[in-house]
């Protein structure tokens, strides 16, 4: 690959640049003895030249790689005959795809006509030129930048300060990646959602009671009107999450209480890591477990009572999700229970309370805000969980709160809408981003609330 080659050459040149910078520093200082005339250690002059050799050209390389594809496509579209350019965006996209495949020697969807072949040849030529130009520009930039830095090397130059300044800049940029990621998430879901709301009114989306995202291909198709009401999905999500919390909160809380109040250090050192194993198991494993083992078991159990249980029941998905979040609840509760001051326990014991009375009437009330925060975090985890519900919950929407029926969730719908072939403009695909926005907003609100509660609680005892 061209980019790999450029990177390797660049690395080699960086090593040279370092050596040259260091040599020149020593040289201008007048040999190794009067090295004290230099402002900085000689290696800093080397680093300075090296950074100049690397950073500008790496930046250009990154930008070039990101935008080469789209610029070339624009050029090829510009070279197409007039009547082709007048085609709709989707058809043009198909042709461009063919051209691209033809140029890279892959299979094309149809027998290429003459214009496509010409365009492909054109694209191939452009690609060759662009690759060559990329290599030349980047290496030249590296050499020129390093050259200027090299010339500026002099005993008086504050090389260390300059290098440290650059490194500090890099640190700040790294730290800002978190902000950029958040901005990226908000932008990508927000923009696509806005495009979705141009096709489907916001009120229909937020308050609609029906979800069936199949839009009609033919006008007279049956049952393909395309309804985008998010309520059934939200109800399904909340139902499954609620079942999960009903499983996880008592088990997690009780085991946290036992581990921190009653257990011997030996039992604690075994049981705590084993329960935390549950947190490290990939969710796809839970999904498989739910679909293969738990769902049939739940179904068989229900049928033995004469109940009609769906094979994709909300109960099975919720149970397994509950198992998954037990460690969240238990380790967060464990932390807050341990944070309750010993003095409160001692006071309660001194009044003659038994241990369980102390726990129930003193420790739990004192730790309650922290436990609530932990439960909210677990709830946000359950709402955003994808693989378990994709594999074990239903696909079609169903507005019900009966845990024995199949319901679908927000995350399941995002996956089904986006996996497989997709056109980027259809309401179906855009709907997935609107669902993503809903999901992001709900989990963000829950997290902010949970962190707020936890932080407020901590201030009481510290």
């Amino acid at each position: 690959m061209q980019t790999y080659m450029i990177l390797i050459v660049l690395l080699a040149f960086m090593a040279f640049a370092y050596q040259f910078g260091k040599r020149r520093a020593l040289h201008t200082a007048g040999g190794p003895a009067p090295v004290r005339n230099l402002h900085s250690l000689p290696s800093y002059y080397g680093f300075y030249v090296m950074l100049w050799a690397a950073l500008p050209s790496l930046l250009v390389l990154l930008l070039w790689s990101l935008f080469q594809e789209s610029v070339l496509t624009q050029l090829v579209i510009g070279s197409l005959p007039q009547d082709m350019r007048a085609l709709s965006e989707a058809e043009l996209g198909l042709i461009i795809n063919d051209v691209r495949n033809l140029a890279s020697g892959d299979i094309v969807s149809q027998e290429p006509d003459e214009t496509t072949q010409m365009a492909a040849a054109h694209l191939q030529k452009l690609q060759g030129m662009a690759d060559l130009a990329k290599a030349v520009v980047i290496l030249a930039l590296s050499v020129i930048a390093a050259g200027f830095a090299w010339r500026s090397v002099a005993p008086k130059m504050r090389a260390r300060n300059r290098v440290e300044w650059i490194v500090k800049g890099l640190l700040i940029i790294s730290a800002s990646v978190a902000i950029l990621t958040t901005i990226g998430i908000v932008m990508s879901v927000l923009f696509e959602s806005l495009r979705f709301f141009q096709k489907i009114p916001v009120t229909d989306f937020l308050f609609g009671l029906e979800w069936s995202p199949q839009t009609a291909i033919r006008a007279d198709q049956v049952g393909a009107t395309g309804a985008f009401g998010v309520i059934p999905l939200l109800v399904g999500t909340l139902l499954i999450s609620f079942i999960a919390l009903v499983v996880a909160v008592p088990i997690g809380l009780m085991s946290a209480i036992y581990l921190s109040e009653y257990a011997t250090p030996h039992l604690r050192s075994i049981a705590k890591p084993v329960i935390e194993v549950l947190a490290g198991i990939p969710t796809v494993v839970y999904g498989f477990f739910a679909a293969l083992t738990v769902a049939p078991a739940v179904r068989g159990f229900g049928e033995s009572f004469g109940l009609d249980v769906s094979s994709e029941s909300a109960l099975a998905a919720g149970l397994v999700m509950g198992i998954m979040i037990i460690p969240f609840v238990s380790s967060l509760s464990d932390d807050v229970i341990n944070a309750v001051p010993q003095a409160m326990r001692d006071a309660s014991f001194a009044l003659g309370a038994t241990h369980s009375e102390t726990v129930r009437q003193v420790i739990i009330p004192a730790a309650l805000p922290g436990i609530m925060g932990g439960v909210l975090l677990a709830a946000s985890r359950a709402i955003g969980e994808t693989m378990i519900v994709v594999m074990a919950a239903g696909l079609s929407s169903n507005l019900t709160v009966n845990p024995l029926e199949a319901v679908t969730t927000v995350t399941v719908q995002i996956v089904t809408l986006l996996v497989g072939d997709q056109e980027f403009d259809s309401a179906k695909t855009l709907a997935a981003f609107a669902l993503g926005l809903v999901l992001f907003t709900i989990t963000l609100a829950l997290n902010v609330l949970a962190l707020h509660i936890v932080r407020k609680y901590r201030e009481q005892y510290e």
Partner: protein
Amino acid sequence: MNQSRSRSRTAELVEASLKRRYAKESRFRMMGLGAIGLGLLFVLILFVSIISNGYGAFVQTHIRMAVTFDSAILDPQGTGDPEVLKQADYRQLVRQPLREMFPDVKSRRDKRKLYQFISGGAERELRDMVLADPSIIGTTKELWLMADDDVDMVVKGHIAREDVIANGGEKLIQWLERFEAEDRVERQFNTTFFTSGDSREPEQSGIGGAVAGSFFTLIVTLLLAFPIGVAAAVYLEEFAPRNRFTDLIEVNINNLAAVPSIVFGLLGLAMFINLFGLPRSAPLVGGLVLTLMTLPTVIIAARAALKSVPPSIREAALGVGASKMQTIAHHVLPLAMPGMLTGAIIGMAQALGETAPLLMIGMVAFIVDVPGGPLDPSTVLPVQIYLWADSPERAFVERTSAAIMVLLAFLISMNALAVILRRKFERRW
């Protein structure tokens, strides 16, 4: 007098209630113990169910056949040209000994069933043998050929023989029993499972492609997440002034740690694929998405490691005239490195098990070839598990569980490595 009586009454009341209170106490204890027991039970059930389903996939049924490398079939003109050998009809080589063994099978339908005994993968094996050593042509060899997945399931007992007979497969069982009587059936270690890519035929499918895809994805993630995470942590712990900007970064890191992983997939789809035009299904894009996802974990762990380096180290270095950057690069970072590495390994384990965001960026494609680099279309181990879990064939249930066992083995060894690192380099100041 009055007072002492009331005191004794209180004591009586308390004593009377003691039994009830102690009973309550022991009930409460039992509940706690029960909760822990349930938690441990869940772990046990999960592992038992996966392992009991999956261990069988590490062996594969093979059937011994006397294969004649007939030159009339392979190379009628006797050219010896590799192109001719590549195109030859290897199916006939497999079918011939079957026909000879069961000469009484005449009808077309029965014949087709008989031919299905041997996997289609056997033809490829024979072709590779001939291409590797053309002098084999004309000889007859006793070879272990891979059996079809249905035969495999019957031999392993996952499909009961009675059920096969009930479904009209009486002859299949007769044939199988004849093979067994002649000692022609054997279970051998399943190398295909570890080396080959995905396939529609369970017996030919393997996790080789998915493991390679996971490897490239994790390499990209590690190369990006570790340096960026460490740099961000160093800035936040050592340099950052307390101001709005720093607070904003901290809030963002905390929130990103709790954003559902599927939302990162949406980001990857909208940004990396649709905006920047990076290839779909490529480990490069998967690695980028997982980098953004694991960064909070890496940053938080790295900050904890930096915090645990005592200030006296910094003060001593500054005291002998090192600059702040030198102090950090020469003294603080080396001391914090084990903790940072531990965090990075845990982040990588998290990334290795992640599925949902990779579905969004097209790593769910059906890919037969083992990828050779971070730009080749590929899938990863958890996604392969998801794909197989969706397949209806019984044999894929076994493969899925076996793939899960491999995935869990990787995760456990990564976490064990992290624990060992921590134990070995942990310092108390």
